């Protein structure tokens, strides 16, 4: 055996500089120190620069008057409001376009993804072309294309397309008839809250009933029915007592420089929403396709053998199983869409980043504003992935 041939020299412990384990740890420590040093140099350089330029590093300036107007606001905002309020307007605009974009991109992407696997030659190839085109061109190019080459090519506001009073499209945006609060709205408002409460109660009761009967199904239709009926009855009572309906239909008509009445989707918002939806849907389509293809072929064959129709097979057998594969990469796409909404600056949409650029220029507080922007995107992204992870855990295959 080897022990007889070994000399005393070979038994000596390996010096640390030749010990692979020690070296690995040392290398990691050296790497860590280097990284920290690098960040420290960057940070101290920034602090020094700010000190030279006499710029304080606090957030007090957020209480100063903003003094600039914002074209598109979802919450009340006046130029005399504070920077903080202006930033909030930007955040709400970002959330609005990102939230709507996520919903629309999911719907469109799912349709295209299923279309990719269709037996219909035309549908299959149209879906494939869609994915190829929109997944392989840069989003910024697409956004500018939608904004400049499509939406701004719409007729000028004085020759808008559409039906006056119902829907009008021009390069000032898309104006549609939209409910607006009437004088009796205030008396109707309690009914809205009551509708909400009754809806929730109906949901809980129906769920309990379903569980007791041990039957599958959703409690949502009952909840919506109950809530809707309450609100409708409320509206009729308000009409009977005050003589006016609580809501009127605001009709878009051309007056002065622009549309008045109804709801107006600005070209900037529309271009950004369109670009984000179409671009992200191409990725979602591939995610959905991959998810569906990951389901074992035997599942489809078994479902068909049991006599389920193709749509039933898709809805009841394939999709529930595909979802497990779809959700994690879908989260990535949602995060991408939210972050990509900052490209709205290219189409003049006043999102968080666009408003912040103005604030930076007026106040000079670039470091604080960028910290705020990053913190906001980080919060939104972490919240999105938290919700998606919760959902993922719920639909996960339960291993017994």
């Amino acid at each position: 055996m080897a022990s007889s041939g070994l000399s005393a020299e070979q038994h000596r412990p390996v010096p640390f500089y030749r010990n692979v384990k020690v070296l690995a740890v040392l290398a990691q420590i050296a790497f860590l120190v280097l990284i920290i040093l690098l960040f420290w140099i960057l940070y101290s350089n920034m602090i020094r620069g700010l000190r030279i330029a006499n710029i304080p590093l606090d957030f007090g300036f957020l209480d100063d008057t903003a003094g600039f107007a914002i074209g598109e606001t979802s919450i009340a905002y006046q130029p005399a409001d504070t920077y903080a309020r202006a930033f909030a307007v930007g955040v709400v605009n970002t959330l609005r376009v990102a939230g709507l974009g996520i919903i629309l991109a999911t719907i469109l992407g799912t349709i295209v993804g299923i279309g990719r696997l269709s037996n219909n030659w035309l549908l299959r190839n149209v879906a494939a072309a869609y994915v190829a085109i929109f997944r392989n061109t840069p989003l910024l190019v697409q956004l500018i294309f939608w904004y400049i080459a499509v939406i701004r090519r719409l007729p000028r506001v004085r020759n808008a397309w559409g039906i006056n009073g119902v829907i009008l499209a021009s390069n000032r945006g898309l104006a549609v008839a939209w409910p607006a609060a009437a004088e009796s709205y205030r008396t109707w408002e309690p009914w809205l809250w009551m509708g909400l409460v009754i809806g929730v109660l109906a949901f809980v009761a129906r769920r309990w009933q379903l569980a007791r009967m041990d039957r599958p199904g959703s409690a949502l239709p009952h909840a919506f029915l109950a809530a809707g009926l309450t609100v409708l009855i409320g509206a009729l009572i308000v009409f009977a007592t005050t003589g006016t309906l609580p809501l009127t239909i605001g009709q878009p008509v051309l007056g002065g420089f622009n549309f008045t009445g109804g709801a107006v989707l600005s070209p900037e918002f529309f271009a950004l929403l369109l670009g984000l939806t179409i671009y992200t849907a191409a990725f979602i389509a591939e995610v959905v396709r991959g998810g569906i293809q990951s389901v074992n072929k035997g599942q489809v064959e078994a479902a068909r053998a049991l006599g389920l129709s193709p749509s039933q097979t898709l809805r009841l057998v394939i999709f529930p199983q595909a979802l497990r594969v779809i959700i994690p990469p879908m989260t990535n796409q949602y995060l991408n869409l939210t972050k990509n909404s900052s490209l709205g600056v290219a189409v003049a949409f006043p999102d968080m980043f666009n408003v912040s650029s103005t604030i930076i220029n007026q106040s000079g507080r670039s470091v604080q504003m960028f910290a705020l922007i990053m913190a906001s995107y980080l919060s939104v992204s972490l919240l999105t992935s938290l919700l998606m992870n919760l959902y993922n855990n719920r639909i996960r295959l339960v291993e017994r």
Partner: protein
Amino acid sequence: MKLKQSPLLVAMLVLALVLSACAGSAPAGETSTGAGAASVAAASQAAVNSAPLAASTAASTATASTAASVAASEAASTAASASAAAGGTGQASAAASTAAAASGSAAPVTPASAGEYLQTIRNRGRLVCGFHGGFAGFGTLDQSGNAVGFDVDICKAVAAAIFGDATKIEFRPLPSAATRFTAVQTREIDILSRNTTWTISRDTSVGMDFAPTTFYDGQGMMVRTAENLTRLEDMGGATICVQSGTTTELNLTDAFRALNLEISPVVFDTQDAATSAYAEGRCDGLTTDKSQLASIRVGLPNPDEHVIMDVTMSKEPLTPAVLQGDPQWHDLVAWVVYGLITAEELGITQENVDTFSASQDPNVRRFLGLEGELGQGLGVENNFMVNVIKGVGNYGEIYNRHLGPETPFNLPRGQNALYRDGGLLYAPPFR
């Protein structure tokens, strides 16, 4: 519920705390390696407290600024050792100059030492000038890709004063107004000559130092002739295209707030985007400085369909800017501009400047450096104005070359004439 991203979050928090702790502890006289170790300990302590990120960053910043005046020299040596560690890369000289600046920060009032900026430029061998890059007449690129324009010539004049050669210069286009001050603050550029309005907040809280105004302008409004608009009062509810990050955006709001009218601004990142949106009818009006509107109007498909309203919403003194903190560098830029004005006053031009060397007029002799040592205080040759005039000519020549009657803009001198001709240009004496 176990969250997938929680380790990442913790890692980021720890990293942020380490960074802020580093900045807090470094001025206290630690060596660079010691600071690293100490800060890890501080970070772990802070992590126990689990203080909010923003609060801890702010706290450490406060520590840094209070400790700065006491121990700035230690900080400088720390920076020097840090830059030595980073040596061997192309950043070495930049790091050295950073260290030099930090040692200057021992004086609490003016952090950058006088003359340091000029020395940096000399060592580099060229001036880095931020200009617009897409603004015809003021700062744009010609067919062969060279920077040309009124603002560009101001930069060239400064380069000529430093090096005796107006070509020792590097141009950085800054088409987006929103990033221009950051470019100065981070020393990406030495001088910002990009139709920038001088305001008190930019002079103080944004950290700029402004040289004298080179072009007096005012904000105007362009509308379609067919709209028949003459007063701002008629424009309530109008949509106005405007570039972001400009005083224009604020002035627009102020003007209509004063009239108690609401308008809807559409804010674009670049002037080109705002202009094309206006041209296509997205907006009823386009607002920016009048000089720029004149330049834009000439470029529109049918200039006659557009009219610049006879209203002025603001004073816009367009002025070159440098980073606050080095008085000598600011003085040099200021006196080059004054020199251009004085040259026009004295009738000295690019062509005849050599003939003035025989002049007996003491004003001319001092101005051209034949007598006295006026250049020395600025850190340049005494005959620096000779180089400047040979390089770009006097103020009037620069104006006529880019904006005068021979150009498409044909802007009248107006307020930009010499004071003796009824304008606002007035240079203090060279004495």
